[in-house]
């Protein structure tokens, strides 16, 4: 029986706590008597028969006919799947998506369906490489479909490949992939790593275009989503659900397959990263000392390669299929069952170690904008109820925050950092003044469509992602970051955690209460 999440009240006997610092980590002593550390629940047991569970889900869906009953010869079947941003870290082969897609294809073959397209639902994310696609769908599926042009990636800038479906009562345009819209059945294969994923966000976001996305990926909606992990209090989700209704009303038939995963995040020798520090044995301590010392001497690029080479042992804990809303309700319960940690009240300061990876830098660089997004967009939002830090409190992150970008993956991020953030960090101002020009820039479109670049508007979305956190906190401090880069973000640099507490004292006084969210592994704090 895995242990649930745990809130450790720090006392004089508490050992130093491990903080992520990108491609390294440090041990930090938190003040006794007023600090707490929130640990994720231990990994749930994975399903014993994953393939059997998938088949069972396809044959016994929620509020939907079984998949075989929906398949018939001559039909158009489209299978869409979540892209490289999920799961994190990438999982060991076989990937969940491969298993589900193979099961769906088996049933389709049995039914005599031969018009099948498989689409990576990447919205405005970068196109996946062949290796990444093979990892996600498996060699068998890739070799059978990709060479014939039947496995491809959604192109949100190809007007010929998009179909305008209609608008919500709020005037939100719904435009999705034309093949998906015109199929007799769209099977969406999801990985629900966090409670934010899945549901109508899969289709209405993953297969849509800027024309649609701009209605919910904007400062107003993001700031009013409290939090992304609580779909009933998330304007982002409400918008996607409204769009989902438009899709259903227009006749788009979606068969949703959602999966959840446990929090078994790091393989040996990095498994100590998931443990609670006071439970580290001598080997764990030695590994930590050895690894962190070695990483200090390792060139950044090599360290990055080491970490991005990690394939997580996490595995499927549930799979459910059928009608989108019905499926997602169960999926969300399953995610909460694995990740929810009850926490009492807020504190003055929230500390967080920013790891080497986020959804948007798989096999890439965690640039400063992504550091901000990971901290204020993701970790800050890992709550239900209310944020871990009080309004007007302080967030302290640890990360080297290098002034470094992957020009292939993040070309518009470079320009955003140089031009937009040099002028304003206000999400509303930048959205008015710059968003359109970045979204419509032909060069960014070209790189998105033909290379492996995120869409031109994507850095804006990353910034908006943190808008609730920015609005909520009075100060954000980054420990150990590149000073110029941190200042460009509008944050305050600090060289040590003690310095950060000293700086924060201007806002929260000399004896602030502190929460440290010890993630990853991922968790959602149920703050009462």
């Amino acid at each position, binding site marked *: 029986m895995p242990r649930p999440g745990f809130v450790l009240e720090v006392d004089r006997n508490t050992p130093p706590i491990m903080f992520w610092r990108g491609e390294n980590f440090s041990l930090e002593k938190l003040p006794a008597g007023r600090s707490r550390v929130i640990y994720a629940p231990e990994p749930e047991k994975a399903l014993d028969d994953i393939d059997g569970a998938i088949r069972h889900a396809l044959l016994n869906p929620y509020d939907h006919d079984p998949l075989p009953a929906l398949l018939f010869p001559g039909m158009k079947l489209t299978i869409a799947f979540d892209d490289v941003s999920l799961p994190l870290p990438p999982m060991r082969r076989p990937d969940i998506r491969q298993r589900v897609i193979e099961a769906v294809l088996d049933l389709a073959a049995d039914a005599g369906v031969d018009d099948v397209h498989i689409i990576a639902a990447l919205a405005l994310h970068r196109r996946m490489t062949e290796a990444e696609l093979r990892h996600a769908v498996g060699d068998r599926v890739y070799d059978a479909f990709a060479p014939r042009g039947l496995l491809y990636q959604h192109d949100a800038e190809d007007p010929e490949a998009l179909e305008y479906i209609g608008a919500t009562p709020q005037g939100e345009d719904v435009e999705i992939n034309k093949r998906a819209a015109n199929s007799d059945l769209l099977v969406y294969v999801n990985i629900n790593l966090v409670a934010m994923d899945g549901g109508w966000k899969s289709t209405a976001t993953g297969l849509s275009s800027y024309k649609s996305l701009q209605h919910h990926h904007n400062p107003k909606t993001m700031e009013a989503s409290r939090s992304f992990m609580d779909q009933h209090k998330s304007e982002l989700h409400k918008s996607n659900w409204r769009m989902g209704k438009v899709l259903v009303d227009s006749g788009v038939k979606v068969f949703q397959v959602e999966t959840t995963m446990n929090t078994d995040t790091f393989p040996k020798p990095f498994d100590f990263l998931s443990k609670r520090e006071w439970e580290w044995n001598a080997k764990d301590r030695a590994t930590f000392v050895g690894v962190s010392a070695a990483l200090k001497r390792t060139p950044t690029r090599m360290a990055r390669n080491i970490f991005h080479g990690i394939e997580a042992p996490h595995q499927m804990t549930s799979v459910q299929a059928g009608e989108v809303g019905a499926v997602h309700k169960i999926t969300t319960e399953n995610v909460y069952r694995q990740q929810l940690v009850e926490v009492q009240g807020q504190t003055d300061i929230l500390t967080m170690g920013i790891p080497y990876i986020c959804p948007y830098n798989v096999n890439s660089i965690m640039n400063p904008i992504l550091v901000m997004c990971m901290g204020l967009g993701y970790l800050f939002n890992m709550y239900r109820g209310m944020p871990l830090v009080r309004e007007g409190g302080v967030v302290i992150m640890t990360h080297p925050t290098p002034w470094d970008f992957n020009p292939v993956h993040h070309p518009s991020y470079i320009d955003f950092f*140089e*031009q937009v953030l040099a002028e304003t960090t206000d999400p509303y101002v930048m959205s008015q003044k710059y968003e359109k020009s970045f979204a419509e820039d032909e060069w960014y479109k070209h790189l998105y469509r033909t290379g492996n670049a995120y869409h031109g508007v994507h850095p804006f979305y990353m910034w908006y992602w943190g808008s609730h956190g920015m609005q909520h906190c009075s100060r954000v401090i980054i420990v150990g970051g590149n000073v110029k880069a941190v200042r460009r973000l509008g944050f305050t640099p600090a060289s040590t955690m003690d310095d950060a507490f000293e700086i924060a004292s201007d806002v929260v006084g000399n004896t602030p209460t502190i929460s440290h969210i010890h993630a990853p592994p991922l968790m959602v704090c149920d703050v009462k």
Partner: protein
Amino acid sequence: MLGNLTDGTRVVIEPVLGHAARGFPLPFPGAAPGDGDDYAHLALPPLEPGIQTGFCHSTGGGWSTSFLAHESQLHHVPDEMSDETAVMIEPAAGGIHSALLCWPALVGVENPIVAVLGAGTMGLCAIAGLRRYVPGVKILVGARYPHQQALARSLGADIVVAPDELQRAVRREVGCHVVGDYLTGGTHATIDAVGNSKSIESCLRITKPRGRIVLMGMPSEVSVDLTGLWHRETHIVGSYTYGTETMPDGSRRRTFDLAIDTVAACDMARMVSATYPLDDYEDAIAHAASAGRRGAVKVVFDLRSTKEKH
């Protein structure tokens, strides 16, 4: 150079030793010292060789309490103008000349874009010239130091970035693509106020095909891959000092007259960062050589008290 005539009149010197100063007929009536397309007068008596006051044995130069100047080189300074403002007239004239040399590439262009590489004294003066005399131009500037960036903005630059960000800024503004190291489009004209191999290469990369590069910084020997110039048919023109300008409206003006207006209108006295007595010339040269990183723009000799001693 700012000084007083023997009768006490305050003047600035247009240092080019032109036709009139050397006793040659003017290339056209009313020509300025820098005008004309035959430089034979530079090589022939009665004056020793030398293109400017300060580089000619016959005249002496500004690093002294007195020197010789021809009346064709003199421009009266308005009484209300401070010495600090007036000392900026000559560099301002150089910047304005470069700015107006961009004009042929901008004629008929709906939204002209000009980039300026470098924001030392001359780059800043070029920015001021562009803003005042080239209508409707959007100015992008690559400036290294924060004080240079601030001055560039205050003189009218629209977008100011670090030099290594300029190419991306131009691309964004123009909305073009990138092929290899070159933009597919680019600025209509670029002023190189640095004048070395790297800056010339940068200009070639960011100036649109068949655009114009105005070389204001003195390049001396450079090593530049000119393949881009060749296949983009880029025009490179030198920009030496000043003379008589053809304005965008077709009228003709002396550059120094424009500069006298400009230094007053743009409060260019603020660009004079330090003054030194001549005796401290080593410190002055060291300061000027590291002006950017020391937060300075223009470093000048102040001989006013020196003169009184003699």
